[in-house]
Structures are given as structure tokens and as C-alpha cells.
């Protein structure tokens, strides 16, 4: 049976946290499109949508957000698990800030975006 999300994926986040703690990662320049933090988020949701919701995702954008909202409302209507609803809501947030997170990879970014992203992970 396929797990909704591979437990090993969380190693990415643990390692990244250790690297930050040990000063191996500079803060904002290390965020952005190819950072381990974003790798975790994208793959978490790719696996979650495919294996738990049966709806593979190929983008993180406003269109996929609309589909996520639809799914969330359907699950809510059927009194589905609250945790699933929360996770979809976080995905919707990720869709909102995704372009700004990608932009962090180009330099310093803004305090506002950094703090939102830090909250999510």
C-alpha cells in the first residue's frame, strides 16, 4: 500500500533545519525555487494530492488553487477529515505566495514574504 506521503521526505526538512542551525545555510538567498524547503513543500503536496486525494498536481498556481478549493469544499460537505481540510488550506496559501517564494531565489526578497514562508514550513 502506498503511503500518502513518504516518511523519508521529512528527512529533507530535518536536514535543512540542521543545516540552518549549524550556520551552513544563509537565510533568504537559500530560499527560492530550488531550496530544500520548497522541495519539501512541493513534493509533500504532489504526493498528498496523488495518493490521498487521487488528484495528481503538476503546478502550484492559481488554477490549481481553484481545484484545491473545490476539493476542500467537497470534503467538508461530506464531513471529511479536518486534518485533510487543513492541509488543503495550506496548499491554497502556498499557491498564493509561490511566485514570491520563487523570487527569493534571486536575492534578498522582502521581510513579508520571508515571514510567510517561514510560517508555512
Amino acid at each position: 500500500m502506498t503511503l500518502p506521503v513518504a516518511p523519508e521526505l521529512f528527512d529533507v526538512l530535518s536536514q535543512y533545519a540542521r543545516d540552518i542551525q549549524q550556520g551552513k545555510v544563509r537565510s533568504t538567498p537559500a530560499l527560492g525555487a530550488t531550496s530544500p524547503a520548497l522541495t519539501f513543500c512541493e513534493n509533500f503536496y504532489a504526493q498528498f494530492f496523488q495518493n490521498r486525494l487521487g488528484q495528481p498536481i503538476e503546478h502550484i498556481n492559481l488554477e490549481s488553487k481553484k481545484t484545491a478549493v473545490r476539493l476542500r469544499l467537497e470534503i467538508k460537505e461530506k464531513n471529511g477529515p479536518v486534518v485533510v481540510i487543513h492541509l488543503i488550506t495550506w496548499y491554497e496559501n502556498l499557491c498564493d505566495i509561490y511566485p514570491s517564494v520563487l523570487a527569493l531565489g534571486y536575492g534578498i526578497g522582502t521581510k513579508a514574504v520571508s515571514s510567510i514562508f517561514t510560517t508555512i514550513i
Partner: protein
Amino acid sequence: MFMQRSLNDVNSKRKAPTIQDAQEVTRLLVKAFPSVDAVLLCGSVARGDADEWSDMDLVVAGSDPNVTPEQLRQAVSERGEHVSVIYYPTPLFRKLYDERALFIAHLKREGIALYDPLDMLKTVLRQPFVPAVNVAAEIKAHRTKLTPYADPRRFNNNFLFCLSHLYSIGKGVVMLGLAKRGVMEFNREAAFRRFTSLNPDLTKEVEKVAQLRPFYRLVTDRQPEPLPFSYQSADRQMLEAVAAIEALAERAENL
């Protein structure tokens, strides 16, 4: 797949953005956000090779640290262009020169100043590019980004986003390798060709990275291209791509 749109639907709504479009967008931005100090156009529109799938890439600096790229995009959203905005508070813009050598080189090479009343862009971009230290550090940072891909089990047989990231990392390594030799090339395909011509023994590795482009285009919602293989159960292809990028990075570091 649930996010894929009809190609015809999308094509009918998009047109290739131009420098004139970017100038108009800039006028709107400056009007909506008087705190904006500078707007620079870069990417395919600035190079003149944009197509209907291209984003308009703008680097914006402003005195208000609380402005976000989303707010800036919102201000021009009615025009319908795909505008990609990178925003820097003005005092931090200059730090870019120290933090992101390749990015500055990119801006110097192809950036077009659309709004620069304080001559900030002119001043920053006039500084000589000194690649030795920063480029080496950036190559090292790119290698670090390969760490999550050491264990294919992490991806539960869905490698789409991995392959897209690996394309970005590999492309960055190739451009950095060229920059270390003093070659500034920011068109991806041209960079791959140039790197291969300078390092013919690494042709296979470059091709391994280049073939991941359709995954990157799929994830970034650009003109779809046929996938060279399925991203499901692509653990072998992922590991081969990681090995190829490692080889490219090693060469780039030692150039």
C-alpha cells in the same frame, strides 16, 4: 492530469510580450506605487526572444519595505500579461552585488532600465563584474541543493517536481561554469551549447540535464513539450541527473 489546460484555450489568450508592453506596465506600477525607485526589464522580453508563453520579468526596487510582489502584480493584472516581479527594498538592492554575482551579471548583460530616476540601476550595473569568489560560492551552493535527491524513496514514485528542480539546478551550474570562464550566457539552450563546446567530454551530462526541460516547463506552466519519460517511477533517471549535475559542478568549480 487535473491542472492541464487546453492548449488551444491558452494559445488564444496569450501573445508575446514586448518592450513596449513592459514600458506600459512600468507606467502603471509607478503610478500605483509612488515608492517605486527603479524598474528593470530582463529575461526573454529584454533579449528580444520572447514568445507567447514568455513571462515579462521585472526587477523592481522601492523605498517601501512592506510592498510585496503580489501587490505589484495585482496592480497590473488587468492587462493580462504574465508578469513576473522580483521586488527589493531599495537599500538592499545594492547588496545584490555581493550576494548574487551571477544574477547581477545577468542584469548587466541583458537588463533594460525602464524607470531609473535616481540612477540607481545605472550605478549598480556600471560596477565591474568580479566573478572569482562569488561564482565559486554559488556553484558550491548549487551542489548543496542536490542533497535532498540522494534518496529516491523520499518521492514516493512521483518525481515531477524533482526533475523540474534538477533542470533548474543543472542549468544554473552550467551558467555558473561559463561565468567562471568569463562567458556570460543566460539563454538556457545557448548556455548548454556553449558549455558543451568548451567541455566536449561532458556532452552526455549536459544532455542529461537538458532533457529534463519538459518537466520544468510543465511545472512552470509554460508551453508544454512531450515528456522524454514518465515522471512516475523515474528514480533511475533522477539519480542519473544528480550524477550528471555533480560532474558538471565539479568541472565548473575547477575551471
